[in-house]
């Protein structure tokens, strides 16, 4: 059996689980509180909450060679390891699997180069000369994708097998899948697994904007974005997955357990095997993002199925934005926080009223977690209370 024994989450919501829970419950009235409307206007972003980086990365020399996303990842990974109460020896044979959509560019350097090109060399930029005069060795260390796990290994001492999956939502789910399979097959006892995605970078905003994927104009909850339009979000979520035997041996409590995990190509394929199990009640954290066509598809899907089933669904991208590779790990952590309180947080606003309040006289024992990629890739997990 696969347990979660530790977690760390940074997002646009508060870091402390109780504050996070309170904020989620109160967000119905204040959706705008977690959105930055100015920094990348006319687009919206969800900024990462403030956190005390020094507690996990005390040395400036370490921070200097790490990008913002690397620091957020090392921080959340440290929280997960601490919560799981892992000793230095136990960390040595803990595997680490990370998903990442790529390193971060140094925006100051890029800006300098572009501005120089602008003022001096508008028609014949000498790229090589610009590169040789502007780029610094530390830039590369912030950019190499696998340096994320390297930094975690250096700062937290996790030196088991190290793997970095490249990609967006699907890679985030695949990282969890590989960790889960490794523990189930007995290949390893513990995997630190997670991802980070910082939406507030110019490169990312530019890429998504030029593909016409970003919401602009009026900020709306994700269910109400009929025309599509995502808001890039920021999150760093890390979990310690552990075999139940290992958790027992270490005398640490399992915070939740996996009872289901499956990756498929379509939404239908994703739910088919689960619907076949003859349950009729579903509490779901949906991985819906307003990529073109996704909102209509998901509304149609749940409108059909909600006739036979009782569905309590939450589309977290309304409050957290699009988290790319960090979606699945972060949602799993939010599911765990709900399960610990045996309640689902209040419905997030939508004109459709598709999100229903979870009955307060019932306890929440299992929660389904979903994620979905832009063009393909669905993931579905079920977490249960232990």
């Amino acid at each position, binding site marked *: 059996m696969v347990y979660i024994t530790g977690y760390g989450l940074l997002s646009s919501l508060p870091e402390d689980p109780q504050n996070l829970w309170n904020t989620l419950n109160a967000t119905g009235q204040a959706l705008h509180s977690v959105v930055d409307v100015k920094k990348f206007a006319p687009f919206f972003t969800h900024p990462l909450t403030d956190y005390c980086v020094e507690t996990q990365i005390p040395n400036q020399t370490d921070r200097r060679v790490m990008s913002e996303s690397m620091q957020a990842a090392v921080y959340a990974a440290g929280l997960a390891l601490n919560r799981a109460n892992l000793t230095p020896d136990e960390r040595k044979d803990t595997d680490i699997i990370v998903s990442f959509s790529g390193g971060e560019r140094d925006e100051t350097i890029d800006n300098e180069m572009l501005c120089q090109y602008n003022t001096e060399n508008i028609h014949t930029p000498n*790229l090589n000369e610009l590169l040789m005069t502007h780029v610094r060795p530390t830039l590369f260390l912030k950019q190499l994708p696998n340096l994320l796990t*390297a930094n975690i290994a250096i700062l937290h001492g996790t030196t088991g097998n190290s793997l970095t999956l490249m990609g967006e939502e699907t*890679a985030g789910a695949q990282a969890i899948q590989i960790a889960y399979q490794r523990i189930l097959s007995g290949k390893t006892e513990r995997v630190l697994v997670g991802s980070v995605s910082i939406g507030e970078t110019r490169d990312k905003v530019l890429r998504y904007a030029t593909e016409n994927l970003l919401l602009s104009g009026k900020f709306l909850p994700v269910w109400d974005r009929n025309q599509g339009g995502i808001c890039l979000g920021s999150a760093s979520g890390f979990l310690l997955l552990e075999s139940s035997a290992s958790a027992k041996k270490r005398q640490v409590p399992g915070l939740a357990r996996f009872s289901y995990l499956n990756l498929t*190509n379509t939404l239908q394929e994703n739910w088919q095997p689960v619907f076949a199990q003859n349950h009729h009640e579903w509490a779901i954290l949906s991985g819906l993002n307003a990529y073109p066509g996704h909102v209509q598809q998901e509304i149609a899907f749940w409108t059909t199925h909600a006739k036979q089933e009782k569905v309590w669904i939450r589309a977290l991208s309304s409050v957290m934005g699009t988290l790319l590779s960090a979606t699945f790990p972060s949602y799993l952590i939010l599911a765990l926080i709900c399960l610990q309180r045996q309640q689902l947080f209040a419905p997030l606003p939508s004109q459709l009223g598709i999100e229903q309040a979870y009955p307060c006289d019932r306890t929440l024992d299992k929660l389904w977690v979903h994620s979905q990629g832009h063009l393909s890739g669905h993931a579905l997990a079920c977490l249960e209370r232990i």
Partner: protein
Amino acid sequence: MKAIAITGLGLYTSLGCGIDTNWQQLAAGQSGVKRIMRFPTAHLPVTVAATIDLNQDNTSATQTLIEEVLTQALTQSALSPQHIKNAQLVLTTQPRETNWPLRFDVWKTYYDAGLHDYDWAKCAENKHDESLYHPATFNHFLTQLQMKYHLQKTPFCLNTACASGASAIQLAAEQILSGQTAVSIAVANDNSVLPETITRFALLTALSTSNEVPSAASKPFSANRDGFVLGEGAAALVLEDLDYARKRGAPILAYLTGCGDSTDNFHRTRSHPSGEKIVACMQKALAAADISPEHIDYINAHGTGTPENDKMESKGIQLLFSDHCKKLLVSANKSMIGHTLSAAGAIEAVFSILTLQHQLVPPTINYHEPDPNISLNVVPNQAVATEINTVLSNSFGFGGQNVSLVFTRV
């Protein structure tokens, strides 16, 4: 671990396209390193690389290389469409980013429109095209690949820096060993010889600046080695559950009998000075293959040609293999094809398998000034024909990710 059958290979390097061409060139000690002609090199400290010049933009070239080696490997394996449909593809490629010519292009559109105050978001608002998003996004690229080859399972795409190619093989094997699939395909690619790549590695003083004679620039294990030479290439390997391959009468080219890895957290770009992590990595691979060091006939070394790597790798080999080093052959493909970064581990695994098939060990070329601190038989300058039953292939990445693979003759 249970042995895994290798039933298909594909290769594209600076030496040429296809398994046969590559092997002929490699066995003859030919170098694929040449003067960079694809872009101007003025102001850059390095003007040589083992490039593949396809006359395509970087993103299209990536796709061409991946599809070429994938097709070669699938053809050789003679897998049916049904087999391929259920296979797990494990890919590694260079990080996907927006290249500078594109950046300038976007900026110029904005500038020419009279918007001279620097404002990136406005810039984004004013130009709508797919040229930025697609090359830098994995979902689009992997979905295309999945559809083109009619794969049911979503491909994995991984990165462990210079060990990526070997990690892809390791993960492909893991998928078979844990019963997730009977067939997996490891594909590795790197075609990132670009001005910014050169700048970055040069700033880390990792690159050779011996620009005078391109073919002589890469000189692993030599006393006068001064860094690696960037290379481009791609490789594919079809891995199968042994019983499954036998049952379908597949052509078995070699066995993958051991995978080992270690994570070195001593420093971001340097390995632990004791060499313990390199030793542990090779040791784990031997343990997985259930063999002792004496069983290894040949090591296909990581052998980058940087002063640091070759010193640490040979130290690790000498520590683990001690007296057996007298018999052991160790050579570096990178002396001919350069360091193909993300693809290196897979390309060199394919060369390791070809070494077993041909019973011929490819040389380390440009070996004219032996390093007195490295007392290994590096197969200097000329291939050696000898009996080879078991090969160890090493890959060590920046950031401390080490992988070793053991291949055994059929």
